[in-house]
């Protein structure tokens, strides 16, 4: 980077020092110095109709993550590394926006992965892995590993666990989704199945299920939003729910 010609600050040294100390002020300095990389992506994506505030937040977080994870010894320029990180996060955002049972790796899901990774690493290392090693293997933060450890079977996946908006009884959404078949309690593996099944649905059906059970919209509201007739809508809902139940009974 030689935007400033002769006045280039010793950015490479900052990175080395930041990796050594984790000093917050250095991190902020590095983020500020590379802010233009984030701004570039904000401009580029702004035309897609995403609120600029969201984009700015996303890009700022992405550049912070990039600074936190950048290893000067990797042999790539930070701007290259940061661009990849930002672009990746923006793409994920656009993907999630269409189907927003958000972050793909919630504690519950991660909990299952964690057990697998634990086994693999234990085997590989010949000892029980540390939190840091697990975090690295799973490409998540150590906080998330700790949270995932907490997420025992008694808990339910957060996305399906939160009361739906305007829900009086505060019951988990997934329970409501399957209330007519189940006793009101879904096991983790069933939740995973539901999630997978929903993820596999064609986009329109997914959106409908989402709006009905997660956003708690009424059928007429959904019909209008999605642009289908109400009878078609109730057919889709019925069919999808039957499919889901069938899979759960298997």
């Amino acid at each position, binding site marked *: 980077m030689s935007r400033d010609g002769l006045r280039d600050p010793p950015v490479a040294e900052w990175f080395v020092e930041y990796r050594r100390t984790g000093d917050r002020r250095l991190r902020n300095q590095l983020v500020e110095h590379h802010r233009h990389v984030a701004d570039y992506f904000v401009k580029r994506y702004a035309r897609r109709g995403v609120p600029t505030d969201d984009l700015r937040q996303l890009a700022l977080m992405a550049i912070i993550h990039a600074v936190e994870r950048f290893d000067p010894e990797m042999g790539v320029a930070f701007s290259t590394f940061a661009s990849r990180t930002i672009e990746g996060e923006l793409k994920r955002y656009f993907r999630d926006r269409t189907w927003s049972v958000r972050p793909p790796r919630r504690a519950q899901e991660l909990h299952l992965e964690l057990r697998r990774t634990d086994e693999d690493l234990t085997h590989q290392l010949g000892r029980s892995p540390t939190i840091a090693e697990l975090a690295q293997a799973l490409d998540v933060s150590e*906080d998330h590993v700790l949270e995932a450890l907490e997420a025992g079977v008694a808990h339910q996946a957060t996305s399906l666990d939160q009361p*739906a908006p305007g829900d009086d009884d505060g019951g988990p959404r997934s329970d409501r989704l399957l209330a007519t078949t189940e006793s009101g309690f879904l096991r983790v593996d069933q939740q995973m199945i539901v999630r997978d099944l929903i993820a596999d649905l064609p986009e329109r059906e997914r959106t409908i299920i989402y709006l009905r059970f997660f956003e*708690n919209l009424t059928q007429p509201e959904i019909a209008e939003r999605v642009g289908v007739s109400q009878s078609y809508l109730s057919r889709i809902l019925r069919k999808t729910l039957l499919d889901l139940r069938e899979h759960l009974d298997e």
Partner: protein
Amino acid sequence: MSVDDSPVRLVIPARARYLRLARLTAAGIAGDLGFALEAIEDLRVAVDEVCAILIEKAEHGAELELVYRSTPDGLSIEGSCANPGAVPEVHPVARELLAMTADDYSVYADGDVVSFRLTKRLQVTTG
């Protein structure tokens, strides 16, 4: 899940490596209160950021004391740390992060103690 109103107090060494406990506690309480995941992620960032400001100049052996309270409209977190000197200056990047992730925050000094107060509102979406 019912939430009783007793505040949660956490005292940790005023060192960056212990901030995880401040974040995890915030996440745990916010989860109980029914915050959505996105808001919880924001809260973790905000707590981390504001605590980092507070402990920046803390002396070795100093403690950071945090109090988490559920309020009628969400969660409020107060923190304080013995930190001789002026109110720490908030870096523009930290300020921006906090503006994005907290509903309200302030950092202030009273004698040798610096404190913050941060609030995150529970969003009620109407379906």
